[in-house]
């Protein structure tokens, strides 16, 4: 099926999300839609999928102009979307999810014919090599399988054009490789594929043609043969970029954070962190890598006093902080950049100025007795906004209206104003543009160099590689490996993220060497001793 967008413009109050965008994808072709967060990729696809109505322009399918009022219309025309946040009901089975809106039923009461759905799902599974159990509850599925179900959901509706919105964000490197294979097979069977991403590597591997969006406009069209990752990055950002952070050698001091036998439960009372032992020295960055949902969130929450520990102890510079509250931790110089900046980092309806004193509002000089000193708060805010280059209309602007990067800068400014002994940063640059990433990375390294112990949790391998002095890879609540110095490589981390232990990583190192060759990482060691596995040095 040939899908074409012609002159699509979509405006929202105050912004032009898409401006005169043209693109077309043929049957059997994979088109990668590349762009930074906020470049307008998702808006464009939501237009194609009938969720938004474009203000100008036309959508053509097989050279016929079509008009989609609802996603139902788009689906009927053969367009299927695999959403970034899976559109699967967790308490339904796979079969129920797939048939939803497209049910086969019996009798006047409309009784669901699950047998029929099961059969169709199994047929599709076999045909496209996407195995999934139709009777499994979606909430019990690992993310990779959930995504398979999501793809099957589109195929179940006879989609001929598949839109995949950032499909690799939640996958392990192995699962990504698997997905790339599936995408290729789907294209070969005649489907047209639109693949939205901001990751350069996967674009180079699977795209037939590449369209780069910036600020809602198409700024480049190319193919993997005619460009490089660096070229794509420059196109995305609009200037030359440097993908690596400048970082002097670490000079670790005495152990600052010591975690012993720490186990933590998640919200469902399952064990999320299991008997972890590690320490971080002053002046050292430990990065915890891993696919989201392997206990990183719970680990950070336990250290920062937001979640009780089931067993074990946490010491900061010799003091027991296992059951300290976030406020006590703040007074002991813990800086925290939380994972969910909107929920845990800011009070969105509060002004930027108030958010900058969220943890110090009741201290001098911001408070006099029970009253606040708003002139001190304001001058403090003005100073920080300038120092940290927060782009905001004024310090009275509601924090919720800032862009993600500026929200993050507000948090960083607040947490970095007094020198910390321990800095915990969870996904510190998620969803930020390259400029903000560089800035925040620089600040984190500066914090380390001033003697803080730094714990970074990130599911972005690039970030881990850029910042880490040591890397712990978290898998199912444990560290599947601890890498240091020359041992740190994209390939090793990737295997550990998938749950391989240190030994098997070594034995496979040679086989997958070629996968590493395209990376900019130069630290890949030629040969290795068995990697340090488990706990601290």
């Amino acid at each position, binding site marked *: 099926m040939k899908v074409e967008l012609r002159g699509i413009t979509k405006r929202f109050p105050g912004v032009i999300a898409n401006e005169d965008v043209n693109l077309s994808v043929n049957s059997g072709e994979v088109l990668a839609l590349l762009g930074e967060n906020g470049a307008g990729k998702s808006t464009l696809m939501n237009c194609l999928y009938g969720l938004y109505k474009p203000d100008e322009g036309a959508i053509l399918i097989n050279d016929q102009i079509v008009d989609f009022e609802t996603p139902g219309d788009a689906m009927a025309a053969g367009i299927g979307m695999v959403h970034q946040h899976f559109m699967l009901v967790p*308490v339904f089975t796979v079969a129920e999810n797939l*048939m*939803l809106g497209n*049910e086969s039923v019996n009798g006047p009461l409309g009784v669901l014919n699950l047998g029929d759905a099961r059969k169709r799902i199994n047929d599709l599974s076999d045909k496209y090599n996407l195995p999934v159990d139709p009777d499994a509850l979606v909430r019990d599925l690992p993310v990779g*399988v959930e995504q398979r179900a999501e793809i099957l959901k589109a195929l179940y*509706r006879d989609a001929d054009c598949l839109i995949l919105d950032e499909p690799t964000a939640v996958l392990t490197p192995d699962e990504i490789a698997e997905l790339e294979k599936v995408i290729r097979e789907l294209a070969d069977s005649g489907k047209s594929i639109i693949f939205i991403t901001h990751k350069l590597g996967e674009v180079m591997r699977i795209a037939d043609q590449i369209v780069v969006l910036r600020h809602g406009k198409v700024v480049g069209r190319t193919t993997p043969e005619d460009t490089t990752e660096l070229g794509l990055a420059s196109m995305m950002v609009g200037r030359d970029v440097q993908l690596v952070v400048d970082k002097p050698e670490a000079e670790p001091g005495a152990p600052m954070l010591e975690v012993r036998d720490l186990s933590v439960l998640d919200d469902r*009372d399952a*064990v999320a962190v299991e008997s972890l032992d590690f320490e971080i020295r002053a002046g050292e960055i430990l990065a915890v890598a891993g696919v989201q949902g392997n206990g990183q969130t719970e680990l950070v929450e336990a250290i920062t006093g937001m979640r009780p520990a089931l067993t074990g102890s946490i010491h900061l510079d010799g003091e027991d902080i296992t059951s300290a509250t976030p406020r006590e931790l703040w007074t002991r110089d813990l800086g925290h950049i939380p994972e969910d900046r909107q929920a845990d980092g800011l009070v969105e309806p509060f002004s930027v100025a108030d958010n900058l004193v969220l943890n110090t509002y009741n201290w001098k000089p911001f408070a006099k007795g029970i009253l606040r000193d708003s002139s001190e708060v304001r001058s403090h805010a003005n100073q920080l906004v300038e120092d940290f280059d927060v782009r905001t209309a004024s310090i009275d602007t509601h924090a919720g209206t800032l862009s993600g990067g500026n929200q993050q800068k507000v948090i960083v400014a607040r947490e970095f104003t007094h020198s910390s002994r321990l800095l915990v940063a969870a996904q510190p640059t998620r969803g930020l543009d390259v400029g903000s990433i560089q800035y925040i990375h620089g600040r984190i390294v500066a914090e380390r160099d001033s003697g803080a112990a730094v714990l970074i949790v990130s599911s972005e391998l690039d970030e881990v590689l850029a910042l880490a002095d040591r890397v712990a890879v978290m898998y199912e609540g444990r560290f599947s490996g601890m890498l240091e110095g020359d041992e740190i490589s994209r390939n090793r981390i990737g295997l550990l993220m998938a749950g391989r232990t240190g030994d098997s990583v070594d034995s496979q190192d040679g086989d997958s060497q070629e996968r590493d060759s395209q990376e900019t990482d130069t630290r890949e060691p030629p040969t290795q001793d068995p990697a340090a596995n488990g706990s601290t040095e």
Partner: protein
Amino acid sequence: MTTIPANASADEIQAPTDGEVALEAEELRKAKRVGWIWIFVGVAIIWLFGFGSEAGVETTFNLSLESDLSITLPSRISCFVIGAIIVLLGIVQSMRPLPKRTIFTVLVVLLAVFAFLIWATRDSSFSMVGMLQSTLIRATPLALGALAGVLCERSGVVNIAIEGMMLFAAFMGSFAAAASGNLWIGFAVGVVSGGILAYGHAGLSVTYKVDQIISGTVINFFALGITSYLAAQILTKYPDLNRAGTFARIKIPILGDIPFIGEILFDNNIYVYVAYFLLPFVTFMLFKSRWGLRVRSVGELPKAADTVGINVYRTRYISVILGGGAAGLAGSFLSLGSVGSFQQNMTAGRGYIALAAMILGRWNPMGALGAALLFGFAESLQSKLAIIGTPIPSEFLLMAPYIVTLFFVAGFGGRAQPPAADGVPYEQG
């Protein structure tokens, strides 16, 4: 069974980890603690009710209102036996936890209540059939009200306006029946008027995205105000308009002649039979039909429903209005099915109790029926015991089921899981 190919690697079964072992041990401790509680209950029954009953005294339970069918039990020995059974169950449970703990817990509670009745009514006779009949009559409006809640909340709209819808329907149904002289017109008007208020609730909470608790509260106060006003203005001036009468009981042939059971279950008015039909039917439709799948998807993840072409707003409107109809049934039952006239604020909080029944029943109509029966049983036990006169203040008995609900809602005995999008207005796009 479908086989999962080998490359579904993360599905592999793995040996339990330390943490899971720790959790299992915790589970075992909990199960054993339940056993100890049972032993305690059993001993308490022997001590309080067994020794509390004088030797040689008997308790008589009447099993029929129409005939002399009854059983007579020796009070003290019966309590000893029941206590011993519970102690035995407790010992087994504390040594090796029984499977299906819920069923045994219910059994223990029923036995304990039975022992209590034997003790409380010793040396006299007690109409078992009368108490169970009134249990069912009291449970019916609660179950129908809970059904209203289930229909709304399964689609993602919190409905605390059941109380108001019931009250409004009780008035309108009674008024219409008295004015027209036809109970069936009252029945229909009751259902429709519940639906009309529900339409208002849907408009406020679905279209205008008003906080659903506020919208519901407003409707409750509106219903209380308007019915009190109209009752004072119209019904006191024209008392004839408040003589609606009640639906007669219909005895079902054959089934109704079964001793004991027939008198309780198959000799009731139309509302009870409607509830018999609706509760299982809606349960079936919710979980087995296309309609139910769509309603539940809208209550769990409306965005997913939207992206596959299901109209979230319309689905919510319809569900809330259907729920209003159920609340209308529950409300008009009070005037047309039981009292025969309208009285100011005659729902007296039953809408809220129905909400509790819905939660205790885990958002499942049949579960809500179970909870409603529990609440109804406690109420009717209380009223019967208040007449007989027992050393325990009967009001305490009335509190018991709500304490159970409180514990349950607080997360003891398995957390109740409301629909994920319950109470969250849906924004398109």
